[in-house]
């Protein structure tokens, strides 16, 4: 469920980077204040554990398929939210760098979906209240399953919203939600079961690890929570608003405003940001002959719907294909020439 660079617009990607960076700075400051140097190797080891745990699959009961531990919730239970977030961030960064899971711009979105949401929303607001102070094994298991399911649902929702706001994919929001949420409910239950099983094992083997030294002081942790929630909500909002400006159709918002207001044409600003963006976009558009900006510049609210573009000019298509082919050939030629020069040196 890693978000990918290829599906993101710069507005959404950078907004998510902002939130993730703020969360990382906050969590790091908190850890630095604790100044517990035992945590340094422990966090590294648990990050490696999450990788290693993904090598061992298990049979999902009552089905023929297999699953593996994701590890986010388990980390929060063992380390507390702040250290867990830093560990998850490191795991996602290594995945983005070495395994091309997601990407560097999408890293912000992935940190938000798989780190901020489970650590700073699900763990304190769902897992902690459910599990209570001295839970029975059954209660501990139920809390883990519920929290993991919630966490993955929120993560999937994040992916869907980020993808839809970016506007690279054509999937409409309801369809995408219908595709993602049921799948992630199932994955969440499996993740919850695996987490619960390990937590129950640890309760028998080394109970002190679950309530012992690794957990942070909850009193301080509580005060950060509303702030982080606020930051997250504000960022989601900003991301949404920003993405309208950064999106490929800056007048999409205006169009939906017109729809909502029942007015055919709201007064269109002829100067300012909107006009500048429209002008800029017209300059930048690929195959400007039949893209929106040409129509949009004339009358934004009267632009034809995408389905009604009859204006297909084979000549321009030919130019695009020819030019693309020549460009690619040039890039490869530069590559080969550089390599030949290097091998001669």
């Amino acid at each position: 469920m890693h978000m990918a660079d290829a599906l993101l617009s710069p507005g959404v990607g950078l907004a998510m980077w902002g939130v993730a960076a703020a969360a990382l700075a906050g969590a790091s400051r908190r850890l630095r204040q604790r100044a517990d140097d035992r945590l340094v190797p422990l966090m590294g080891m648990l990050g490696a554990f999450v990788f290693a745990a993904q090598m061992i699959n298990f049979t999902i009961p009552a089905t023929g398929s297999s699953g593996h531990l994701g590890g986010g919730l388990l980390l929060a239970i063992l380390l507390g939210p702040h250290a867990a977030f830093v560990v998850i961030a490191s795991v996602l960064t290594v995945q983005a760098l070495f395994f091309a899971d997601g990407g560097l711009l999408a890293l912000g979105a992935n940190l938000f979906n798989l780190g901020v949401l489970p650590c700073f929303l699900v763990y304190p607001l769902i897992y902690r209240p459910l599990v209570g102070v001295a839970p029975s094994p059954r209660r501990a298991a139920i809390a883990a399953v519920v929290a993991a399911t919630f966490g993955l649902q929120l993560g999937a929702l994040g992916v869907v919203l980020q993808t839809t706001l970016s506007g690279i994919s054509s999937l409409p929001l309801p369809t995408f939600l219908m595709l993602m949420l049921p799948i992630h409910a199932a994955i969440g239950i499996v993740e919850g079961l695996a987490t619960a099983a390990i937590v129950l094992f640890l309760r028998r083997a080394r109970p002190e690890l679950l309530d012992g030294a690794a957990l942070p002081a909850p009193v301080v942790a509580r005060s950060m929570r509303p702030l982080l929630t606020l930051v997250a909500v504000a960022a989601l909002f900003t991301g949404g608003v920003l993405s309208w400006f950064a999106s490929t159709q800056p007048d999409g918002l205006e169009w939906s405003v017109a729809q909502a207001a029942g007015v055919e044409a709201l007064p269109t600003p002829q100067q300012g940001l909107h006009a500048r963006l429209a002008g800029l976009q017209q300059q930048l558009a690929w195959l400007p002959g039949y893209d929106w900006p040409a129509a949009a510049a004339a009358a934004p609210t009267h632009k034809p719907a995408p389905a009604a573009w009859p204006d297909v000019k084979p000549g321009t298509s030919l130019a695009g294909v020819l030019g693309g082919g020549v460009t690619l050939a040039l890039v490869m030629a530069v590559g080969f020439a550089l390599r030949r020069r290097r091998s001669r040196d």
Partner: protein
Amino acid sequence: MTSLETALDDLRSLDALATRDTDLTRRDPRAKLVATLLFIVSVVSFDRYSVAALLPLALFPTVLAVQGEVPARTLLRTLALASPFALMVGLFNPLLDRAPMLVLAGVEVSGGWVSFASIVLRLGLTVGASLVLIAGTGMHPLCAALARLGVPRVFTVQLLFLHRYLFVLAAEAARMDTARQLRAGSHPRPSLAVHASLLGHLLLRAFERAQRIHGAMLARGFDGELRLAHAWRWQMADTTFVVGWCAFFIAVRWVDWPQAIGRLFAGAVA
């Protein structure tokens, strides 16, 4: 071999590439990091129907891969495994967006296929650039660069520890699984209960290993701070590198070169 073991092998080979002395590894890691981030932002800032206009950007990963002597095979292998999620989501575009957009050799191509091609191209460019970055830099220099760019120390140290012990714990997990398989007869995968016990023991070993490492670090004077050695000094060449590539990204973003070249050729053909 599981897919994760394959992935770890790839990680090892990327690490090995970064230890060589090439034109790319000699660049200041901060320059490479900044240029790569700017590159990715330029790629994703294009219109969703851009295909040809994106192609000139392929010059950046190509030139860096050549400078870093990164074999094309390693790149293509990881590219092929990369992000099936983006491709799956992208494949809905041709189904949903059927308005004709181009005519190629008499065949109408819908907007959906054009935007799908754009997604595939974006995926290739962004993934390619980040792989070249890590293969031409290595984890230690990259973490040092992150620390000097203001990323919290807690995080860079965590990245280094994770990178260091990834293989150790993965190998331990693989040995445990082999031992289980040898005793499990015809059961290819463990039940949830056995799985929990296996991972639980792996977790206990991880805790104990962390304690031993902490003891060893204390014995060597660890005071809560990990000092990263870095020998880089920002040079004129690094500035040229960043500014040059930046100018190239802006030029590609502002002018549709393939379209211009294509017009020229199409004119010549006509």
